[in-house]
């Protein structure tokens, strides 16, 4: 009986020590995760790097690299974030882990404005048969990629497809409609100097452009009429042509500038007021 009691006691001790001998690496990971949840990203990265240094068997490589990448992303250090998220992809042990790391990598590239790289990552995911069921989510981020590439029309098409996100689709359509046509502004100024500036709402500049062109046009033609051919060529070439080409450049410049203002306003709304998921 005593022998049985002793063995049962020993067994209980061993089971307890086995169950509760939680790896200190696990504890370290949980501590780092706790710091991350408290938004103490600098400290979280320090503790995660400490975990990585002592984790000789790379048991926590995926989780630590992912969390470091997220911490850097929240701290707007996108270059470092991409580096660690790429490492997380490499150390991913399952398809789900790989997908999470890869989409985060794409989102970070969108924020970093390296949209070509984001597109490549998202296309890789779209073409990967393992992630067919995640197509909606991938297309959602593709839409955001087009927003950051300033291609609001394509972004609208993506968000409108199968009503992926109606709020974003409406916003993209609105922005696309508000934007000025740079080509129209430029080519209309070829026909009527100052019209491009008028089209973009720069009325004073439009009036000045038109005025200068009329003045030097008149002086050139007048010189030709009075048979002062050399004068006409000089005024036409150095004055009228200068103001005419300047008018076209101005029209294009104002259209581009106004379009930037419209895009920036939309991006500001997305940053501060949009309630949906953002990169």
């Amino acid at each position, binding site marked *: 009986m005593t022998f049985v009691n002793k063995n049962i006691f*020993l*067994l209980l001790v061993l089971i307890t020590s*086995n169950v509760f001998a939680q790896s*200190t690496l696990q504890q370290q990971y949980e501590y780092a995760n706790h710091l991350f949840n408290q938004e103490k990203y600098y400290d979280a990265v*320090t503790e995660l790097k400490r975990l990585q*240094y002592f984790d000789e068997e790379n048991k926590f490589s995926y989780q630590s690299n992912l969390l470091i990448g997220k911490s850097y992303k929240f701290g707007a250090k996108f270059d470092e974030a991409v580096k660690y998220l790429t490492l997380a992809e490499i150390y991913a042990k399952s398809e789900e882990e790989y997908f999470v790391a890869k989409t985060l990598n794409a989102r970070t590239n969108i924020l970093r404005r390296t949209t070509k790289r984001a597109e490549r990552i998202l296309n890789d995911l779209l073409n990967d048969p393992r992630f067919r069921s995640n197509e909606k989510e991938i297309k959602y981020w593709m839409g955001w990629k087009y927003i950051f590439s300033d291609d609001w029309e394509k972004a609208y098409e993506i968000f409108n497809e199968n009503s992926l996100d109606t709020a974003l689709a409406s916003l993209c359509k609105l922005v696309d409609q508000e934007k000025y046509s740079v080509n129209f502004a430029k080519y209309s100024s070829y026909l009527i100097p100052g019209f491009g500036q008028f089209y973009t709402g720069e009325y004073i500049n439009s009036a000045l452009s038109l005025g200068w062109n009329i003045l030097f046009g008149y002086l050139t033609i007048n010189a030709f009429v009075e048979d*002062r051919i050399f*004068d006409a060529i000089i*005024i036409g070439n*150095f004055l009228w042509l200068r103001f005419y080409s300047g008018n076209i450049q101005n029209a294009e410049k104002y259209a581009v500038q106004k379009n930037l203002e419209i895009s920036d306003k939309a991006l500001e709304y997305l940053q501060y007021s949009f309630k949906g998921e953002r990169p």
Partner: protein
Amino acid sequence: MLKLFFFITLLSSLIYSQQIDFNSPSNIKLFADYLFCDKDYFRAIDEYEKYLQIVEDDSVQFKIAIGYSAINDQSNAYKKFSSIKLTSSFYEQSKIEMLKSLYLQNIDSSYFLYADILTHSQSPISNNAYRLKNSSLLLIKNDLPEKENFLIPFENEEKKSLSNFYDLKNNPPYKSEVRAGILSAIIPGAGKIYTYDYGDGITAFILTGLFAYLAYTNFEHNHPTRAWIFTAIGAGFYAGNIYGSVASAQIFNARVNFEFNEGVKLFLEEKNYFVPTNDFCK
């Protein structure tokens, strides 16, 4: 059977209960060294400071100072280097590092005072200090010493570069602002061509000439109103051309100074400010 079961359970508890003391001094230092070699100096400094609270170690103090210097916090680097004790093996090097920190903060009288002290100290780093001090003279407005004296502390391969800098400092290739203005007054645009601003020079010449011609020809053909308009515009371009030529000479001279200073700074950076290097990451 029961004994085998106990053995397996004991073995598994030993395998799975990985006990690492992250806060032991040795582990803190190991991690700090890893961060230092990874160039994550902010974190390395934090870890080294934690280590120093437990263990006194002059090499760690020195690394903290190097870390501050690497992240360009020269004020803290200087403080840390100055706290290295006389008995430390890093003492001599910390002196020249302090001089480097002072140089990177500001080349002023306190920098030169300390440089003189080190130069005359007859320590292993006195020649390093002498070289840094003489190189710094190129970056201030004061007169340089005689060329022979200036080049004394330098090695042969360095003498050639410093000799060029010395000559440039004494005879910089400036352009005269007065000459540029006068040239443009005589021939519009000539002052700008004198300062190698060819595009602007030709444009100024053409525009001023054009408006002068238009004014003349309109007066000749009895269009006084237009003629006076072109005269006014032409006069404006002529005055602007003179002003622009003077400004062009000033910009040219500023660029000469800027390129010279950047050249000297780059030379010093490549030489690591004549400070011996320690590779702690071998």
